[in-house]
């Protein structure tokens, strides 16, 4: 099998660094997230967008609480750590006090939809000049795979062992779809990171969202569907397909609203 590295005997040649894949604006290449997790590539895409738009010296990230919090002390952009669910109001305070900065939140679906739904809705309604980024894997990944307000019908979690049952648990909130109807929101998109093509499309959304903020068009929002094989109880290599067939079938990807040029 090509690329297979035997681990039952010492290597025949010493390891060598082929390339340093650590992107700009990430301090340490190592992270403690699970193999197959979609959050690192989503985080990387957001940072690349900041870098490419030349916003590094003005960016302030406001983090929620979830697995992605592992990145909050590992970035070469300024970071303010907020509580679970509360990043949009904290970001509002930052942006109002420092209107020349570029402020974005990093939150998960448990953080933004379950715990903090009111925060993001009001921030959008105010047309607050911030960008909210939601990493949506449909579960509470950090606690080990529990049902969130974005878990799709039929999805198995530790608190919906037989699958999410609409009669018992209700139906998921499709946050991007909801925010697209809020007047203060100028840009709303939903991407996914289960393939190289989709990562590239998601990055374009992030670039456009930051552009919306830069042009003070209003509130901007990018939801990114990410793989969570651990929280979904599927094999790592099955996770990109599972994302496509389950989450993305309900949380439909695409640009839902673009009034940046309005």
């Amino acid at each position: 099998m090509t690329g297979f590295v035997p681990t039952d005997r010492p290597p025949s040649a010493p390891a060598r660094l082929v390339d340093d894949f650590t992107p700009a604006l990430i301090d340490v290449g190592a992270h403690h997230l699970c193999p197959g997790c979609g959050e690192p590539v989503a985080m990387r895409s957001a940072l690349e967008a900041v870098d490419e738009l030349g916003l590094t010296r003005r960016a302030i990230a406001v983090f929620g609480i979830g697995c992605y919090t592992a990145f909050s002390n590992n970035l070469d952009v300024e970071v303010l750590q907020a509580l679970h669910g509360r990043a949009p109001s904290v970001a509002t305070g930052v942006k109002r006090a420092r209107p020349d900065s570029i402020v974005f939140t990093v939150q998960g679906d448990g953080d933004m939809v379950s715990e903090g739904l009111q925060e993001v809705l009001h921030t959008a309604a105010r047309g607050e000049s911030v960008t909210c980024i939601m990493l949506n894997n449909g579960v509470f990944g950090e606690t080990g795979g529990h049902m969130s307000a974005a878990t799709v019908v039929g999805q198995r979690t530790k608190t919906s062992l037989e699958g999410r049952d609409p009669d018992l648990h209700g139906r998921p909130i499709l946050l991007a779809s909801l925010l697209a109807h809020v007047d203060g929101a100028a840009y709303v998109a939903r991407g996914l990171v289960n393939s190289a093509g989709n990562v590239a499309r998601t990055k374009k959304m992030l670039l456009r969202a930051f552009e919306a903020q830069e042009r003070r068009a209003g509130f901007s929002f990018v939801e990114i569907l990410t793989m969570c094989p651990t929280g979904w109880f599927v094999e790592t290599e099955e996770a990109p397909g599972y994302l496509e067939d389950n989450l993305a079938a309900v949380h439909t990807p695409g640009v839902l609203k673009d009034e940046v040029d309005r």
Partner: protein
Amino acid sequence: MTDTAAPARRLLQGSEAIAEAMIAAGCRFFSGYPMTPFTEVLEHMARLLPGVGGICMNAESELEAVGMAWGAAATGTPAATGSTGQGLSLMQESLAEITLARLPLVVLDMARAQGDYYQATRGGGHGDYRHLVLAPADSAEAVTLIGLAFDLAERWRNPVLVMGDYYLAHTARSVTIPGPVDRAVPAWGLDGSSGGTGRAKLISFLGSAKQRDDVGYDLAAHYADCAAHTSTMAHAVKPLAEVTDTEDAEVVVVAFGTPARYVQAAVRELRSEGLAVGTVRPITLYPFPTEAVARAADGARVVAVYENNQGQMVDDVRLAVLGRAPVEFIGGLSLDSSGFGIAPDLDVRVLKERISRVVAS
């Protein structure tokens, strides 16, 4: 400005005096959610802050009010928020973490009566932290303590709570608003500019040390740092108290806030009637003026505590008195039907009778 005349005295309602004092103290960001008796402070800040280039946010809930103040505070902007004890209950999760993130913030607690003494002084949230707590007895003192609150918050990078009540918020009185204080933007404040330097700033209640290859956040180290900081602060901040007529007092009455003014009036009358009575009014509730209370209790036959609640500060008084004299609780919850804290017991005759009963016992 070349005007060197002393600032004029003006008749202001307590809420307005507090708002003007905050602006004079350098406050440039305020966020709040309406609730009696805090509401008028928010109204005055909404009216006054834009005129000095500040921001006032009518937040969608107390959760968002404290979140917005958190964000502004993290930029190094002198910030404040507030509510009643009820609204502060909602804010506690954030207030706890703001403290562990080492951010300065002034928090107004326009309480209903005095049932929120524990909430204010113990820290109503989770974790091992303390807030500095100042308790003015009237709006003139509130103006002074607001300035002190911003100084202490800046100096210690810790929230400072100013505890008032319905009377303080709604009573008009002649006050002098001090001249404006200029506060420099602190080096730690976020503005984005340290990005890409390899040393981008991080403000986090999980600790502000950056990640190393093998370690993410080290909460054991961070919480130990926070505990050491709290201890240093608690020892360094000077406890304040107003002490009257305690040298020869057989009975010392301890009370704080608005009720303390009524207690002082009752004690003055009892003095003129020949009773050896004195008072201690804690002005800082944390750190508590333990020494002032202990000194007053030395030689006293009994220490009486009046609070408009079922007995909360009495715990701190007992810890201060430490057996020097018996401590009697003479307070009790006294409310109007609205629950705002307009107290029938705040009547000099009622208080004189309660103090006299302790004297006679």
